[in-house]
């Protein structure tokens, strides 16, 4: 989780990722951020987020995103 928060904080250091659950709904993340996240997650976790997992629900909170990464790691 720490590693993920670091990636996210590099994008927007004024967001409280521990509590925010509307990263997409409130337009905090944009398409550029998504691309960066996909690339960084690949670098750091060695996990490729497939296109079908690129849905708002997986990116609305750090928690959801981390759950996705864990799920993909298990596969």
């Amino acid at each position, binding site marked *: 989780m720490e590693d993920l928060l670091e990636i996210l904080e590099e994008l927007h*250091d004024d967001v409280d990722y521990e509590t925010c659950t509307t990263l997409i709904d409130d337009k905090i993340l944009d398409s550029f951020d998504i691309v960066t996240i996909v690339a960084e997650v690949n670098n750091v976790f060695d996990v490729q987020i497939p*296109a079908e997992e690129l849905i708002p629900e997986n990116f609305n909170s750090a928690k959801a995103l981390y759950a996705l990464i864990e799920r993909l790691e298990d596969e």
Partner: protein
Amino acid sequence: MQTNVLEYLESTVLKVPHKVAYANEEDVLTFQQVYDYARAIGSAIATYHYDKQPIVVYMKKHPNAISAFYGVVYSGNFYVPIDEEMPQYRIELIFQTLQPKMIICDEETQKHIQELNYQGHICLFEEMIQTPIHQETLTKIREKALDIDPLYIVFTSGSTGIPKGVVACHRSVIDYIENLSEVLQVTEGSVFGNQAPLYFDACLKELYPTLKFGATTYLVPKNLFMFPIQLIEFLNKHKINTICWVASALSLVSGLKTFDKIKPEYLHTIAFGSEVFPIKQYNEWKRVLPDARFINLYGPTEATGMSCYYEVKKEFALDDVIPIGKPFHNTEVLLLKEDNTLAKKDEIGEICIRGTAVTLGYYHNKEKTNEAFVQNPLNDAYSEIIYRTGDLARYNENHELIFVSRKDYQIKHMGHRIELGEIEQHVQMLEGITNACCIYDQEVEKIVLYYIGVKETKEVKAYLKGKLPRYMIPNVVRKLDDMPLTPNGKMNRRLLKEMYKESRRK
């Protein structure tokens, strides 16, 4: 001879009144509705007797906003679209230049306007369309109108910190739309999927050919550009066959491996521009859509929209650049060297544009206008204005134009044109900051800000969010103890670039 863009609407509404002109995921407007709304809005504005005034359209991205544009034109004035998400500070800067007498808003944006210190008329779209159409007045207004009258103003980044308003007239837009439509081969069957915001000239590519041919434009929800499978589903659902997107939007779709799961079913024309489209991503698109036409477009806002095109028909090596090709019909590119003579063979020169599509310059800004809109140095016999783009290019062996670089610190970031100087100006205005320098790392597409001062990076970023549109906010902010300087005492941008690249590798 056509002298007003509304003639497109007036002839099309007779042919296909009930066809959908503009739509988003929820609402549609037929040509008849666009026609009726526009004339009602025109009639409402006409009661104020403004003549050739800027009228701000401050509405969310919606088919209604487009009909408001045409309504402003019916009233004998010109429209100025404003980004609904733009920080208040920037809107106020733009209003200082414009001094607009009227703002058209919707129920959502109305709240934001109340926060501005704005003294003019605030009109609500939903009320304006209830106005009875006064055709006689509108006809009288039209009789007086010339094709050299302004149609719109769009604002673009200015290196001094103040955005510049580019003024375009009807004749330039008609010239552009006629020639662009020919290149894109637009027909009544064209279904556009619009990506560009309505507050840039880029949306002209969909809005006006739709009027001219009785085609249809879907406004693609911005959110979908984060979720590429949903994006392609949207294209397929609405049978979208023509897109003119910034290259980064296309790259996003192919780069995230979307085509493994879903393919566009109806797309046959893909135009891209505003930035370099990497060959690797182009190849992906070509593989999935082997029969589609791919067209690279190039052009500055100051020449109405796009000025040059190149249809990709051959294969390129991965490290090749797709040419920007040749100018549209009725536009000429002069490639001028430093000494104002034409570049020969493979010499590099500045792209200077000649033709009807050259706009009227920057609103209330003679100084900046005179710097860029200049007498053709190759002609001292009569008055002839060309626009100096600041883009450097050369010809390849097939006499196709190849973009080389910028003359100054203007960049293209995710399709947006940005003056790094504008960002620096704002940082320097922040108390406790003594120096600031922005660089752009093309490779990873990041704007990097270096500064010296007592403020924390967090504070600087938060401050900028209140001053600049989102796409101009630096992606990386770093504090320095000393600013590296060149021997001449200027900020050493090259060294900063290397510093950033170095830190990225670690």
